[in-house]
C-alpha cells in the first residue's frame, strides 16, 4: 500500500474558485458584487520597459538637471484651465462609497501634492470642497445631488459616460451604506439598494452631448474645463466623438479600473485593458490634430512611477488613481488583518467595499468605523505616496534624457510580450516588430 497522499487534480475549467462561485450562486440566487478592479492578469504596463540611455541617447543628471512635472488641463476652450504641479490626479470616488473622512483625506493629500481631486456619484461634500484646492465635479447619469451652486464652486466638470470597471453599467450603492446623510444628499429613501442609471437622462449620442457640453459651458460662462470620462471599449471611436462633441479633456479608464461596487462578472469580462486603450485614444487625437490640445488622462491600474512614465510615454498627458490612493490612505493595511479575517477576508484581499464594514474607515458610512480614519494623517500618507510616484517617474524620464515628463514618447518603450507589443503598438524588445502594424489595425 502506498503511503503517499493521492495527488488530486484540479480542473482548469472547474477550478476551486469557479466551483465556489457556482455554489454561492445556487445558495443566494444573486450575482456576486464586490469592489476593486479586475483580478485576472491582463496585459499591462508591467509588460513594457523603458529603454533609458547609453550611447545614442544621453541621460539627464538625477540631482542637478530639472525634469518638469506640471500639466495644463482644459486649454482648448476653458477660460480658466487647470495648472497642476504633478500629472497624477485623484479619480472620482463618491461620498457614499467612501466616508466623509476619506474624501477629506483625498482632498488634503492632493492639495499638498499640488493636484486635483474629483467628486463622484452622490454630490459634493463640504469636507472635500473645503480641503481640495482643485476639485473636479462629476456630472453623472444619476445626477444625485447635482446642484448648479456646486457646479459654480467646482474647478472643472467631468461628464461621466462610463467607468473602465463597468462600461455600460450604472452606479450601485447597497442599502447598508445608504445612511441618512448619503440618502439625503441623493434624495433617496434610507437603506435602499440604490441602482443608478447607466445612461444620461437627457441626452444620448454625440450630437446631443455637444449640446449638453454647450449647456454646461453656458452655465459656467465658459470658464471651467469640461472633461469627458469614458470606460475603455471602442476607444478610438469614442475619443473622436467626445472631441467632436467639444470635450476639453478625455478621461480614459481601462478595464482594470477600480469600482466601489459592481457585479464581479462585469468587472472581469467587459471592456479592454488600459494598455491597448491608450494608443487607440492617442491615434484618434492625432488624426484630429488634437493630441496635447485636448488632454488625455489615463486611469485603470496605475500603481507606480513606472506606470506613470509608461502611460505618459504612450501619449497620456496625465494619469489618475483610485485604488492606489485608497491603499495609500490605509485600505487593506496589515494592521487590520485580524479584523478583516473576522469579516471573511484578510489584509491584501479585502474587496467587499460595498458592505460598508471597512475597518480602515475608508469604504464605509459607519460613524464608528469612519472615525478611525484621521484625515490629516491619511492625507499626509497620500501626499507621500504621490510624491514617490512622481520621483519614480522623473527617475525614469531623466534616464531617457527627458527634461519634462511629457517629453517621454513611444520611442522610449519596448514590449516584453507579443501581446503587449501589439496592444501598446511598441516593438517587441530587441526587434522592430510591432504585431498588427503595416497594413492591419486601425
Amino acid at each position, binding site marked *: 500500500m502506498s503511503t503517499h497522499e493521492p495527488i488530486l487534480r484540479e480542473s482548469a475549467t472547474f477550478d476551486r474558485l469557479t466551483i465556489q462561485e457556482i455554489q454561492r450562486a445556487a445558495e443566494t440566487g*444573486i450575482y456576486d458584487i464586490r469592489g476593486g478592479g479586475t483580478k485576472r492578469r491582463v496585459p499591462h504596463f508591467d509588460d513594457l520597459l523603458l529603454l533609458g540611455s547609453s550611447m545614442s541617447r544621453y541621460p539627464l543628471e538625477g540631482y542637478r538637471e530639472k525634469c518638469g512635472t506640471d500639466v495644463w488641463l482644459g486649454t482648448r476652450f476653458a477660460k480658466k484651465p487647470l495648472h497642476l504641479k504633478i500629472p497624477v490626479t485623484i479619480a472620482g470616488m463618491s461620498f457614499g462609497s467612501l466616508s466623509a473622512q476619506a474624501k477629506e483625506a483625498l482632498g488634503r493629500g492632493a492639495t499638498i501634492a499640488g493636484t486635483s481631486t474629483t467628486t463622484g456619484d452622490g454630490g459634493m461634500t463640504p469636507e472635500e470642497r473645503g480641503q481640495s484646492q482643485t476639485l473636479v465635479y462629476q456630472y453623472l447619469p444619476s*445626477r444625485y445631488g447635482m446642484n448648479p451652486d456646486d457646479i459654480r464652486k467646482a474647478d472643472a466638470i467631468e461628464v461621466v459616460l462610463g467607468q473602465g470597471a463597468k462600461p455600460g453599467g450604472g452606479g450601485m450603492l447597497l442599502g447598508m451604506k445608504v445612511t441618512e446623510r448619503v440618502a439625503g444628499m441623493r434624495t433617496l429613501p434610507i437603506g435602499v439598494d440604490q441602482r443608478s*442609471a447607466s445612461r444620461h*437622462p437627457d441626452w444620448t449620442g454625440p450630437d446631443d452631448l455637444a*449640446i449638453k457640453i454647450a449647456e454646461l459651458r453656458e452655465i459656467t460662462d465658459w470658464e471651467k474645463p469640461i472633461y469627458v470620462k469614458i470606460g475603455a471599449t471602442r476607444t478610438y471611436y469614442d475619443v473622436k466623438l467626445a472631441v467632436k462633441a467639444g470635450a476639453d479633456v478625455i478621461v480614459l479608464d481601462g478595464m482594470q479600473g477600480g469600482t466601489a461596487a459592481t457585479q464581479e462578472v462585469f468587472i472581469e469580462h467587459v471592456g479592454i485593458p488600459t494598455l491597448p486603450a491608450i494608443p487607440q485614444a492617442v491615434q484618434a487625437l492625432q488624426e484630429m490634430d488634437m493630441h496635447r490640445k485636448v488632454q488625455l488622462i489615463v486611469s485603470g491600474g496605475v500603481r507606480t512611477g513606472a506606470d506613470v512614465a509608461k502611460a505618459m510615454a504612450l501619449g497620456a498627458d496625465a494619469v489618475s488613481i483610485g485604488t492606489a490612493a485608497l491603499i495609500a490612505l490605509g485600505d487593506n493595511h496589515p494592521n487590520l488583518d485580524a479584523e478583516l479575517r473576522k469579516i471573511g477576508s484578510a489584509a491584501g484581499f479585502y474587496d467587499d467595499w460595498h458592505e460598508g464594514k471597512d475597518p480602515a474607515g475608508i469604504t464605509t458610512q459607519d460613524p464608528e468605523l469612519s472615525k478611525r480614519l484621521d484625515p490629516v494623517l491619511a492625507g499626509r500618507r497620500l501626499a507621500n505616496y504621490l510624491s514617490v510616484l512622481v520621483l519614480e517617474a522623473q527617475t525614469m524620464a531623466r534616464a531617457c534624457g527627458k527634461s519634462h515628463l511629457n517629453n517621454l514618447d513611444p520611442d522610449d518603450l519596448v514590449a516584453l510580450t507579443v501581446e503587449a507589443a501589439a496592444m501598446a503598438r511598441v516593438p517587441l524588445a530587441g526587434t522592430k516588430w510591432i504585431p498588427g502594424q503595416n497594413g492591419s489595425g486601425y
Partner: protein
Amino acid sequence: MKTIDLSTASVRELNQALHEQHKQLTERDWVIAHPAGKHNIAVGIDEPLKIDIQGHAGYYCAGMNKKADVVVHGNVGVGVAENMMSGSVLVKGNASQSAGATGHGGLLVIEGDAGARCGISMKGIDIVVKGNIGHMSAFLGQAGRLVVLGDTGENLGDSLYEVHIYVKGKVKSLGSDCIEKEMRPEHLSELAELLQKAGVDEDPKAFRRYGSARNLYNFHVDNAAAY
C-alpha cells in the same frame, strides 16, 4: 424691462447678461425675442428674474434654473428645465423628451403634450402636463409630483422611488414596481394645491394616483425578472 433679440445677439451674450444679474440685480424683467429654437436659452439663472421667451426654444431651455420664472410662448426641445432647483417654467406649447429631468425643485407646467421620459429621475420638482406624456415617464423618479391631465405612454413610473403621480386620462401601462394607489384626503388636497398653482381648473377627484410598490428597494432573488 430688457429685450434681447436672438436674431442679432448670441445665446452666449444672452446668458452672460442674465448671469450678470447674480452679481448685481439691475433688471428683473426680460424678454427674449426670436429664440428660433436655439439651444441652452436662459440656463443657469440664479436670481428671481421674470423671463418671457417669445417663440420656440431648443434643448435644455431654462436648464438648472434657480428662482427665475420663465414663460416659453412656443414649443421646447429636449430637457426643458432639466435639473431645476426652484422657480418656475411654463411652456405654452409642447415639450420634447426628458422634460424636467432630474429636477430638484420648482414648478414646470406644460400646456401641450410632453414626449418620452417626462420627469425622468425627478428629485423634488413638480411637473404638471395639461396634455399627454410619452413612455417611460418618471423613470427612476425619486421625489416630487407629476400631474398629467391627458393620457400616458407605456411604462409609467418604472423603478419609481417616492414620486407621487396623478393621472386624469388613460395609463397605457405601468412600469416595474409602479402601482395604482388609494387617493386619500391628503393626496386630494396636495393635488388641489398643485392644480391651483399651475392654474388648472380641474377636480382632483377625477384623477388616479400611482406610486412605488417599494418591492425593488432592496435586491431580492424572487424579483430578478423585474430588474
